């Protein structure tokens, strides 16, 4: 056998005496990673603390300034929107919605999808074929339209939006969970556990689950990013309740000023906030995923 050849750019140093040391996990986040984490922390904190922060009421019109007034006028840090509401305050409140969506998807979508995937991947056979066929059919559905239909069916409040997005995310989680379960259930420690007399339930909980959860969580972060965009899309299309303050809704509100009155900030500011949030989640999710070396299942 010829010795290992250097890859185009980096070669692995030859094995040293202590080759049984655990490989060093690359845990450096880098500047970008810390910035991303910081941003998310700020959004998170703002969202949680919104009720007690000294913010203008996000749904009260300020009659002392024009609608769509630029940042800085009349004490409004980022200006007012098309209804005269304070933009900065709406941004902070809008974060709550994104937060709820994120947790909801992780809770509902990941749990259900993960369960379906793990069961399919572990038990194989007819059960797997059936489950994955159903999953594939749902993946064939244009997800946005499905989401719109679900929200229309259930009614347009925040709870239903979260349920809808979670439902639509289940197939993706199921596929990843199944793929990860497949790799793990072939490994020796599962065979060993079975040989020691462990039943299926025990193996699932003790061996499979702890190993699948981490990559699933890493993937979950990426799904959270998509979920935030999905909620934003719904709000943008005017399909969520007008009671909730949402970034997507804010962008939608900024359409008329942008396209008809040449006023940009009402739409651009929430766009930037949304972009930075999604970027940060994506970035951290990507780092997290790289740490576990999960292969992307072709979604």
């Amino acid at each position, binding site marked *: *056998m*010829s*010795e290992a*050849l*250097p*890859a*185009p*750019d*980096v*070669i*692995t*140093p*030859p094995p*040293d005496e202590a080759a049984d040391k655990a490989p060093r996990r690359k845990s450096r986040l880098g500047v970008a990673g810390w910035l991303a984490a910081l941003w998310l922390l700020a959004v998170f904190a703002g969202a949680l603390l919104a009720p007690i922060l000294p913010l203008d009421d996000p749904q009260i019109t300020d009659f002392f300034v024009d609608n769509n007034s630029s940042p800085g006028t009349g004490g409004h840090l980022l200006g007012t929107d098309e209804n005269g509401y304070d933009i900065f305050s709406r941004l902070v409140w809008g974060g709550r919605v994104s937060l709820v969506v994120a947790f909801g998807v992780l809770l509902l979508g990941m749990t259900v999808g993960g369960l379906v995937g793990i069961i399919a991947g572990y038990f194989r056979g007819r059960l797997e074929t059936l489950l994955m066929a159903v999953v594939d059919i749902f993946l064939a559905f244009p997800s946005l339209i499905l989401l719109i239909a679900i929200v229309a069916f259930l009614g347009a409040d925040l709870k239903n939006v979260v349920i809808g997005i979670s439902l639509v995310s289940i197939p993706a989680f199921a596929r990843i969970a199944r793929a990860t379960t497949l790799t793990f259930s072939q490994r020796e420690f599962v065979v060993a556990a079975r040989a020691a007399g462990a039943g299926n339930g025990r193996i699932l909980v003790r061996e499979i689950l702890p190993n699948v959860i981490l990559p699933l969580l890493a993937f979950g972060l990426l799904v959270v990013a998509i979920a935030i965009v999905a909620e934003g899309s719904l709000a943008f299309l005017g399909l969520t309740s007008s009671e909730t303050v949402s970034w997507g809704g804010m962008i939608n509100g900024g359409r008329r000023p942008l396209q008809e009155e040449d006023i940009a900030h009402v739409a651009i500011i929430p766009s930037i906030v949304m972009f930075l949030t999604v970027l940060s989640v994506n970035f951290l999710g990507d780092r997290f995923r790289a740490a576990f070396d999960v292969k992307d299942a072709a979604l």
Partner: protein
Amino acid sequence: MARRIIAAPSVEGPLLVVDDFRTHFRTDGGTVRAVDGVSLTLERGRTLGIVGESGSGKTVLSRSIMGLLTARNVVRTGSVKLNGQELVGASNAEMRALWGTEMAMVFQDPMTSLNPVMKIGRQITEGLRFHLKVPKDEARAQALSLLESVGIPDPKRRLDQYPHELSGGMRQRVTIAIALACGPHLLFADEPTTALDVTVQAQILNLLQEQQRERYMAMVLVTHDLGVVAGRTDEIAVMYAGQIVEKAPTSTLFANVRMPYTEALLKSIPKLEQPSHTRLQIIGGRPPDLVNPPHGCRFAPRCPYAQPKCHAEMPPLVEAEPPGHEYRCWFPVGTEAGREALERNLAEHVPAAEAAVTGDSHAAGLVDTAGLVDTADHGGEA
């Protein structure tokens, strides 16, 4: 009939001259000195065998001589001259003009060295059309005769087939055909038979020899298997930890081995005369760390003859009595100094020495079986 491409030698002297050649890789863990001061020459039409275990640097050497390593962290120093032209530091364009036409390589695994989604014929004619500007039809005809000359039956059909449709041995013949297409003067064969069935190995080696003779080509045969180079090479160079530790005409090497590492290699080849169930002789220990190689002789930690001087000072390559035989050892095999060194070690119960003498590596404690689990079904045997 194969077309013979014999170019007139452009300069006098050896075809390939390598002088104090080094190839280092800069990594996060340090600089890996994969090739650390290799010098050799090769004349036209002659065969050089390079032998070494995994990690000796032999594959890196052949690829680095050809200049195929272009990763950013590679540092090559020293001199490699092909027909008088300096290769170290040559530009990419200059190298591309040489690859295929002057030097070529046959790789180890024909399954992975052939493009799986390209027809065989195309893979052969590519070089012809690029380098020699041969028009399409003529290139195809040449490819056909090349396939014939490497012994592929029904070559016309094979031209339009894909690699996965051929057997392992045939695939390797195809890679040989590809390498020879533009008539190189120097051929590197990097473990050409390791990935093949034993029955096919001899055929491929014979083919290489035959082509070499017909084309008056120089060949470098890189392998870990001494059996491959015996009888097929004019000269053998033994590599260890990035250096050449012994170099001699083939018959001299087998008859008059000097370097203990070479001796150990020779001893580890199982022989027919040995009784069955004879335990294989191994060389205990592992190759050294190429980032921080030992100060003295690099083989000293595993050498049966090692003395304090060996650990302290690196032995230089010296010539033995018959010229052309170089070795790198303070206490070489077959000399008075060597015999005394071995006896001293035996007296002190140095494991490597005991294993070398008794032939039983297990008893000498050189084989570490702790933690190994025997999971094979021995069919009833103990």
